């Protein structure tokens, strides 16, 4: 039993995921779409380099064609090309920000869960209160105080998105604390820090990895919203939010395509992640299994 308990759950997850059944075509498509878009945008500098500050003032606002699959924008830049890089920029910012949030949430949740008692209560009250602050408003406040920049956007996402991670880690640590092998370690004379790093961390890490991954789309959204408001990345950078913001002006002059491609990229990637996450939840949600009333 102890053996089973110490095995990281992610392994089970991975093993059972590989078996595919007919009803899972949607999942397969979503996975493939996600894989190609993400890999494509990450590898883009190798195959399709982009000069972020290039303009072509003689090719402005061309409708989609075979040379410009998604048309060109107000400054004659290829929308499809920039959308690929927009996703890349947004994903990188999202990933770093999600990592920051995870570390922050992990530390707070870990401290709350390990120390327990009053510290736990106070920390969780703070988490509850910050959860009541509208993410976007708090994010805007942080960006405004740090001045809009790449670092500010990452800080803005990181400082607003760590709450769920803190809660996950705390509850995980709390449940682990009651397991016999932790008791054994403590009675064996191991220090608190040692127990935390040697025994608790390996258990919590898989959950953290999953939480970080699922946070990336949220981080991308946050970045996109800030950029759209003109509070995010420098506006000449091809990020998805900047592109939609730029495209807003083109909409009225008839160049609807300028905001279509970046928006579609967000929708497709988020949708794919949502499909995967929903299936994931269905798989591991005990409620679904309880459907059989015998």
């Amino acid at each position, binding site marked *: 039993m102890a053996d089973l308990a110490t095995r990281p759950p992610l392994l089970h997850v991975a093993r059972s995921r590989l078996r595919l059944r007919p009803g899972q075509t949607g999942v397969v498509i979503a996975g493939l779409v996600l894989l190609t878009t993400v890999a494509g945008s990450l590898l883009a500098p190798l195959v399709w380099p982009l000069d972020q*500050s*290039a*303009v072509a*003032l*003689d090719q*402005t606002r061309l409708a989609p064609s075979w040379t410009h699959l998604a048309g060109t924008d*107000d*400054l*004659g830049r290829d929308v499809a090309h920039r959308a690929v890089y927009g996703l890349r920029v947004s994903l990188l910012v999202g990933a770093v920000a999600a990592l920051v949030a995870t570390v922050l949430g992990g530390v707070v949740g870990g401290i709350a869960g390990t120390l327990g008692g009053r510290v736990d209560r106070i920390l969780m009250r703070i988490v509850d209160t910050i959860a009541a602050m509208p993410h976007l408003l708090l994010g805007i406040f942080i960006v405004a105080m740090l*001045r*809009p*920049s790449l670092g500010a956007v990452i800080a803005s996402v990181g400082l607003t998105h760590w709450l769920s991670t803190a809660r996950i880690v705390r509850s995980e640590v709390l449940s682990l604390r009651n397991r016999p092998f932790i008791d054994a370690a403590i009675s064996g004379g191991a220090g608190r820090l040692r127990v935390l790093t040697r025994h608790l961390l390996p258990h919590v890490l898989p959950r953290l990895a999953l939480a970080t991954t699922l946070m990336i789309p949220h981080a991308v959204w946050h970045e996109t919203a800030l950029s759209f408001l*003109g509070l995010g990345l*420098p*506006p*000449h*950078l091809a990020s998805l939010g900047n592109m939609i913001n*730029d495209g*807003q*002006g083109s*909409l*009225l*002059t*008839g160049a609807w395509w300028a905001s279509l491609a970046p928006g579609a990229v967000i929708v497709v990637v988020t949708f794919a992640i949502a499909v995967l996450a929903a299936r994931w939840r269905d798989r591991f949600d005990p409620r679904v299994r309880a459907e059989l009333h015998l």
Partner: protein
Amino acid sequence: MTRMRPTVRRFAASTAAAGMLVLAGCSAPATPDGSAGGTTLVVATSDEPDALNPVLNYGVDGASLIFDGLVSRDADNRLVASLATALPELSPDGRTVTAKLRDGVQFHDGTTLTAPDVVFTYQAVLDPRVDSTLRSDLDMVESVTAPDAATVVFRLRYPYAPFLQRLTLGIVPARLLSGQDINTAGFNRKPVGTGPYKVESWTPGDRLVLTANESYFAGRPKNNRVVVAFVADDNVRAQRMRAGEFDAAELPPKLASGFDADAAYRVQRVPTADYRGVMLPTGNPVLADPAVRRALNLAVDRAAMVSGILGGAGEPAFGPIPPTSEFTDASIIGKPTADPTAAGALLDAAGWTPGPGGIRVKDGRPARFTLMYPASDTLRKDLALAVTADAKKIGIGVTPAGLTWDAIDPRMRSDALLMGYGTPYDPDFVSYKLFSSQFAGQGYFNPGSYRSEVTDRALQQGRDQIDPNLRRAAYARFQKQLAADVPWLFLTYLRHTYVLKSSVRGVAPRVEAHEHGVANSLWWNIDTWTRS
């Protein structure tokens, strides 16, 4: 009403006018609403003032609709008397200015304007406790006094040629403001002036509603109400213009051009003194080399910027004094298109040789610099990118950086910045502070620390001399020196673009300044506008 066909509207208007005649003959004046002279005009702008108080920078160049200055400007931007009976006289030593006030001018609340009101207004600007940023513009004023109720005397510290141009500042009633904290006074939201319109209401972020001042000293406005709609978003403004909500709206050139083909609208592209350029700081090791600055000046394609970014609504710029000004010097005007060959030759001669990645190198230093632009300004972003692309063609690497003003602030000594300025009224106004070594490194005035004795002398002469011919000569020297030193890379003069309904009559565009909004826009004379 707004969607009514012209013929129907004309019919309705003429019937109403006929009715008016009959009524006017036999009874007291009827309600003017709906009558021929009683239209409501709606104009839209993105720039909402912070406070409607001339002391706090509202409409300081006149044409503020609510206030009048001692003088104002006509359609050709020539000074004419306004609250003063005639253009004030400058004393022979150039240090005393006396203005006689017009008789019986009333504020909107019915009180009479007297000289102490004028004195109060100027003293409020000069009062250090008042957060007025105009103070530095009136630096030369030593004292303002009112020897009698109809006379105002300005005493200057030093002779200042264009001082009369500073007398456009709107006059506020002393009675309503004395003894108050002007910074936070309720007056700033609901002001009282002498101008053609009274403030009926102001909903911040939405609209300012003005009603005609029946007893305006220069004659009652030809319309009854003016609504200034504040619509920050260009696209929404264009959409609402299209929906017929506005009689006139300022729009970015590209959006305005969408109305060109429609006979129901008229697009006005108004010449301005509003220029955009790149400030090249001498504190940057690459930009300190005059050869690099001159090469950039040759390499930028101003014609492409005008057509590609401004949609044709602009002119190439080569100096800070607009072509419309009598002080402009034609000899500095260069080729509107790029000349990368000449630029390359300049760089070669100066020892900037092609290096790795297509970027030139001199003494191991790559030709790279950062070009900052205010992130919220799309036009400046576009221009910055165009400069970046042009510079790349001659082997100069530019890194654009979109920042907020307070992030730009500490970096202006060493990083290039896309700036915009310009006023058509007098060449001294902006240029003196922008290019005089006195102001080197002082805030936004001469952030690049440009220093040239020739320029300094020319600017000082332009300010000291009263004789227009001597001034013209001084400013010619000034412009030539700038063209040789290239402390700024002048790119374009904008044309402010407005869309009007074709039915609007009485519009008289005049050369506009960088700053324009409720005041000092195309509707500077809206009190004479009518609808056909």
